[in-house]
């Protein structure tokens, strides 16, 4: 891989972030709504300010957010800020910045989403590969079906059912929260166990619903691959079933699957909005949901851009890994 390609890929990464930032910048400005006014109107409703003086406050906030300047100037300033990962102040948690809000929420989401995404990817890919492999035992192939059916269950229903039966009726697992109320987080074994206990149900709600997607796409790929001549050739060469499965079949079918992994991040975040909400977890999904409810646009856009950056970075890395997985592309 030469320097030119690397530069090209990095340029691409920058373009993605630029495109997302630009969309995010212009959409709210196309509508006549004024987020700062709306936000302070809400505050006035809860009695934080005396009514007549909100206008003054709004004007000073507009200035602080640079909204009194011409749009193009705002845009340049905004792009500059994004390069420094500076999304401005949170409107609902002023003077906390949007970046701080994201940073506080991030560890919770990374912990939950990383584990669930990896688990459902591995389980789903293997089940999908097996489901498409004619020589696999039929009970193993049948295992894929319930997961495929479960994809149809909306995460919100999955979460409610898990909460109701396992948490509420059986009392096996806690009904929400990141850890037990009244506990101060410390690095100890008992805190870790308590923490884990609170993550099981939300993780289940996410995994059960997402395995099926991987099963489906892997199965589709697998079926195409096994018709290929090189698989037939390997069979005739007398290689063992396990070897063919691993080296010829799984490896070739994995390619589009891995591409899907980066894109799945965007989908998983949307499930996280629902699941974190249901379980009262303080992650990115909850931060986003609360920001949407409070119309806290620096946080909303900060999260959108941040997630975009994460996905784009992952994709760029995969672009580098791609040729390693598919020798045919490497040859070109």
């Amino acid at each position: 891989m030469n320097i030119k390609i690397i530069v090209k890929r990095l340029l691409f990464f920058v373009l993605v972030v630029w495109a997302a930032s630009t969309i995010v910048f212009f959409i709210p400005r196309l509508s006549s709504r004024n987020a700062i006014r709306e936000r302070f109107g809400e505050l006035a409703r809860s009695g934080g300010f005396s009514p007549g003086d909100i206008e003054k406050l709004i004007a000073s906030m507009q200035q602080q957010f640079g909204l009194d300047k011409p749009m193009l100037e705002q845009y340049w300033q905004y792009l500059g800020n994004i390069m420094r990962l500076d999304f401005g102040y949170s409107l609902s948690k002023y003077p906390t910045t949007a970046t701080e809000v994201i940073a506080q929420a991030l560890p919770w989401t990374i912990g939950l989403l990383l584990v669930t995404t990896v688990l459902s990817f591995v389980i789903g890919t293997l089940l999908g590969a097996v489901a498409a492999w004619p020589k696999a035992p039929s009970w193993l192939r049948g295992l894929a079906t319930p997961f495929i059916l479960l994809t149809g269950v909306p995460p919100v229903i999955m979460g409610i059912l898990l909460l109701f039966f396992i948490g509420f009726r059986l009392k096996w697992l806690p009904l929400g929260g990141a850890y037990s109320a009244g506990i101060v987080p410390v690095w100890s074994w008992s805190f870790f166990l308590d923490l884990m206990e609170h993550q099981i149900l939300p993780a289940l709600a996410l995994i059960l619903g997402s395995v099926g997607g991987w099963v489906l796409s892997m199965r589709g790929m697998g079926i195409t691959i096994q018709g290929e001549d090189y698989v037939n050739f390997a069979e005739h060469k007398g290689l063992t079933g396990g070897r063919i499965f691993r080296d010829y079949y799984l490896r070739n079918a994995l390619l589009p699957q891995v591409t899907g992994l980066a894109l799945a991040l965007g989908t998983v975040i949307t499930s996280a909005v629902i699941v974190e909400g249901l379980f009262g977890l303080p992650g990115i999904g909850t931060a986003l949901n609360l920001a949407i409810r409070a119309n806290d646009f620096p946080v909303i856009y900060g999260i959108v851009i941040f997630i975009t950056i994460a996905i784009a970075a992952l994709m760029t890395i995969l672009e580098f890994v791609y040729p390693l997985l598919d020798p045919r592309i490497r040859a070109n």
Partner: protein
Amino acid sequence: MANITMPTDDQSVRQPGTAVLILRYLRRNKGLALGVIILLALFLFTVIGLLVINPKHAYPLSAGLKQPPSLKYPFGTDFFGRNLLAAMVVGMWQTALIGLLAGGIGTLVGVVLGFTSAYFGGWIDSTIRTICQILTPIPVLLIQVVVAGSLDKRDVTIFTMALIVAMLAWMGPTLVIRAQVMTMKERQFVAVAKLSGVSDMGIIFREILPNLLPFIAAAFVGQVFSAVFASFYLAVLGLGPLREPLLGNIIWSAQSQGAFFNGWWWWPLEPAFAMILILGALALVNMGLDELANPRIRKSE
């Protein structure tokens, strides 16, 4: 649901001819058969339902309150006094409409662009691919939320929902189709066809397109999937047409009234069950299409 025409179309292309052949094939391909049967049942439920029920009863204050399923109300009624049978029929219709509309638009654009891009390569490919790739990582749903949130409430209808959902949904299929055509271009049969002097169009329509159908179908199913899900999410955030009995809206209002805790289990579970059936059936059809479209597998079975 009308998308059951999808598999039958395929079959008529592949096995020109008779219903007998199709039925015989469906007996062998049980997953596809089951999927088609479920979709057919849902389709009948909706069509017959639309003929029988009074659509007015799908809206609040038109029936008794919080009635469990009974002879008078086979699906029960909700907190707001909707007859859930009527609500489910209308909701199925609306959900299907959003799914098919948004899924159709997304897939069509995706197939055309993906094909053009991968097959012709060069600057066409790099332009389309770059635009797609730049837009793909952007979390579509969040953008949709922002757009839907900035609309005037009166403008949020079933159709604007479908458009919002379709707006940024075509990049996925484009990239998937493109990737498939790319690998297919490397395959022996295309190389053989090229060597034997088959024209570009000939290769596209005779060699590549048939092999691509499972992916197109999968993309379509995936698009319908995500369209239904996206509209559901928008509804959950209070950004959908609140009054309409969209399946997602029914679940949302049930949840916001604490239906499960209050013992009105039928209220959220019915639309959830319908959702499982719709998406599960689509998935089964999708699996069945894979087998159908790959002749070598069909032979070996």
